[in-house]
Every structure is written in C-alpha cells, then in structure tokens.
C-alpha cells in the first residue's frame, strides 16, 4: 500500500510518499530546498498563494524521488486542519483533485494525528510500535501529553495553559539576547552553567493533573535579567541563567510526565513506551532528563528523527495510510477545519492562565 501525503497547514509546503512496509519513498519540504529564506526563519511562509505556487512542483518531485506514477498510489492524504485556512484549502483541494482524477481514496488528516502516529513509522523495533503508548508532543506551537490508544483514538492527558515549551525557549533566548531560533542557542549558552544560581519558578510542579504553564517562567527570566548590573550582559550570567532556565523546564517536564505515566499505566497496564516528538526533543538536556525518567518508570523511550518531528508531509502520508488500511477515508465534500482538537472530549485545563 502506497500513499501520497501533502502538508500545507502552516509555514511549510511539503509532499511525501510512504508505504505500509514503513518505507519513505519520497520526502520533500520546501524550506529545506530554498536557501533564500530571510535569516532567522521568523517570517512564516503563510500565504496560500505561496503554497499554491510550489505545491505542484513539490508533489512532482516527491513522486520522482519515489519513482512512481499516480496510478501506483493507493490513496492521497492531505492535512485537513488545524491550521491557517488558506494553506489548508490549497493542500486539500490539490489532494482531492488527484484523488478525483485517478479514482483514489482521499484522506483528510489532522495535523496533530500526523505527529501522534509518526513513531509507528519510525520505531526501530522490527515489529514496530503497537498501541497504546504515551506521547509527549513538544514544539514551538504544541505542548501536549496524549495517550495514543489507536488510530483516531487519542486522549489528551495534559496541555499548556499558555505558552508552548518551544515558544518559552524562543522567548527566553530573545530576552537573553541570544537570537533565533532560541532552542538550540539557549541550549548551547547553558553548557557548563550553574543551574542552581538563579531562582526560577517551576510552574505547575506538584499540581494535580498533567497541564503545563510556561508564561510565568518567561517573565521570571525577564525579572532576573533586570536585576543584573546595567550594561551589556556578562556571558557568565547568561550562561548560568540559561542553565537555570533549562533546569526549571526539565523539572516541570519530569514532574508533569511522571504524573502522566502513572495515569497512563493505571489505564493501560500493557503500555510501556514514551514517545517524545516535536522540535524540543532535540534538546539534549531535556532528552536526558526524560530518558532517565522513562528508565526509572520502566518505560521505553522513543523519539522520531528530528526532521520528522518538525512539520513534514511524511507524517501526513503515514497517518493517511494508517486510516486507509482501516477503511477510514473521507468524502470529496470534506471541509477544511481551522480548529480541530485531537481529543474533542478533553476537559478544560486546570489553570486559568499563568502569571505573565
């Protein structure tokens, strides 16, 4: 079984081809091809027009990489939301057109479902990763803990009530004058720093439930910086503050995840894998803290390769394939959904917004 996937829901235009033998035959992401994007990546490629300009060529390229014609596909999947509506429409319309012309099934994939199922494509174990498993999705835009119980069956155990963790890194790095993207720069700045020197809060730590909050931590960083001597920041101060910040985030992640693990175990005694997905999984310090936690709790730690943790079309093709082999496809009347929670039954988070 072979599926083409299309992703246009936010900054990236991407196309990919995957098989049910867990092979990635083609994988093209526009931003990885062009070197003329403005420095910093701050400006997103949000224009529907831009997706429209590039998508045809990217699909052709992905199909060429795979060495396949459209008649060899078994289905076409596109991100149907959540995301910016203009971009989602471009991807969905393109996928529908290919499906209609070639008489193929069309699958509208929830972008978050793509992130949730990627580990089943990339798990190194020969038999792959079976349900249920616990997923920590941590990126610039997402910060959620989900029990992944099956295709289409996701239960949200926790979410951020304000900023996502990657966003907290970006904003803290900006306050420290480290630049963009903040995650890797802050991680580098923290090397060898004294993580106990600055007193920073551990928002939500010890609280019931598994929700996150990072806005107050960002403000605390700003307050610590304002207490430093006037003038340019001393690199030693920044090093120690970056280390203190990372330690605070690590403590919060470990606290929230250990609660989620206990809850997950109680409900799913057979589940034994913690999957960490999202760009934040690249942070070596946080990865080490989470790996140690998983070891201690008897969980297997798994993280998809980084290029499949950021937005891509492989995950959309794969989620589409998972749905297709269960016979769960969408009609050509599917309407894009700018808001599309993965777990519509999720209760509201416990807090009502953090200090900022």
């Amino acid at each position, binding site marked *: 079984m072979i599926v083409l996937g299309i992703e246009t829901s*936010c900054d990236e235009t991407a196309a990919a081809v995957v098989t049910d033998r867990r092979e990635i035959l083609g994988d093209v992401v526009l931003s990885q091809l062009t070197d003329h994007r*403005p420095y910093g990546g*701050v*400006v*997103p490629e*949000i*224009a*529907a027009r831009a997706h429209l300009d590039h998508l045809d060529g990217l699909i052709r390229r992905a199909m060429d990489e795979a060495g396949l014609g459209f008649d060899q596909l078994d289905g076409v999947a596109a991100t149907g939301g*959540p*995301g*910016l*509506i*203009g971009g989602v429409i471009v991807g969905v319309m393109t996928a529908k057109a290919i499906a209609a012309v070639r008489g193929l099934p069309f699958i509208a994939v929830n972008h978050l479902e793509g992130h949730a199922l990627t580990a089943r494509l990339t798990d190194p174990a020969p038999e792959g990763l079976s349900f249920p498993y616990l997923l920590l999705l941590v990126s*610039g*835009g997402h910060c959620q803990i989900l029990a992944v119980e099956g295709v289409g069956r996701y239960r949200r155990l926790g*979410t*951020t*009530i*304000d*900023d*996502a963790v*990657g*966003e907290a890194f970006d*904003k803290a790095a*900006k*306050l420290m004058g480290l630049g963009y993207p903040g995650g890797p720069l802050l991680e580098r700045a923290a090397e060898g720093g004294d993580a106990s020197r600055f007193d920073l809060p551990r928002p939500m730590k010890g609280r019931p439930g598994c929700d996150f909050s990072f*806005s107050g931590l*960002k*403000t*605390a*960083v*700003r*307050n610590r910086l*304002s207490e430093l001597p006037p003038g340019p920041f001393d690199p030693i101060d920044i090093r120690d503050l970056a280390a203190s910040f990372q330690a605070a985030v690590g403590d919060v992640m470990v606290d929230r995840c250990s609660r989620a693990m206990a809850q997950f175990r109680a409900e799913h005694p057979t589940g034994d894998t913690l999957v960490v997905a999202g760009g934040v999984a690249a942070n070596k310090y946080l990865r080490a803290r989470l790996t140690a936690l998983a070891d201690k709790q008897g969980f297997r730690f798994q993280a998809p390769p980084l290029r499949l943790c950021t937005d891509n079309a492989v995950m959309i093709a794969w989620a589409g394939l998972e749905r297709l082999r269960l016979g769960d496809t969408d009609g050509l009347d599917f309407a894009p959904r*700018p*808001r599309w929670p993965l777990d519509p039954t999720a209760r*509201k*988070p416990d807090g*009502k*917004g*953090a*200090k*900022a």
Partner: protein
Amino acid sequence: MTPRIRHDLTIDLQDEAATADLASRLGRLLRAGDMVALRGDLGAGKTSLARALIQSLGDADEEVPSPTFTLVQTYETPAGPVWHFDLYRLGGPDEVIELGWDDARTDGIAVVEWPDRLGTLMPDERLDITLAFGPDPTARRATLTGFGAWAGRVESLEPK
C-alpha cells in the same frame, strides 16, 4: 463637549487579579467591529490580558493558548467572534490579510498583539493598551489610549 480623537488613561495593576478585573470591565464594552491593540515588551502580560478578556467574554474555562505560533486563534463568544492575533512573526500587512483580517474586522472583535505589523491596515478607530512593568514583579502599568469613538468609550474604564 469638544469631540476628542484621543484619550489617555493610566491604570496601575497590582497583580494578575487586577489585570483580570480590567479585562472584564473592558469586555463589557466590546462589540463586533472593535479592535483592541496590545503593546508591550515580551513578558509584559499582553497574552495574559487577552486571555482574561476572552474568558470574560465567553467561557471562563476557555483554553486561550498563546497565538505566537498559530498566528491567530478564534473564539465564539456571546459578544461575537473574537480573533486573537499575534503578528510578531509576520513581515507586513499583506500577510495579515492571509490570516482573515477582513473577516475579523467585518463582524468580529480583533485583539491584536504586536499591532505595528498592521502598517496601513491599522484602523483609525481603536483602543490601544500598552503594558509596562511596575515596581514589583507582579505589578504592571496599563496605558489605555482611545482613538476615534474610543476616546469617549475609554473614559468608562476609569477605576472607580
């Protein structure tokens, strides 16, 4: 009374509860077509104020995540749809249009962080709220500036 095009009002906010109180008093004034611009440095509390405002207009337990990465989040409330924008990552006005700006302005309430990216789209008629840090970590000072009809409307937000 001579019509004024601009009115400034400064309110000291001791803590987050004071911010929430200002937000709910502001919420009662809002109607479709209004725009509130939120200004201030990182960590000044723009999103916190927006969150309190959106929660006061609709469900007090509504999730109001930061819109920094999604660029815009929309909420259905009894006062009308609220569009919460964060324009920080945008390059300019043509990208704002991509986010549904015209729809937001037609029948919605627009709450906009980093409003300078609006450029020529900046409405003449609007409420600006600038948040600055106060003397202690939880304190903030809000400066409210009403433009156009907001010059009069903002006066009712004067603390009693």
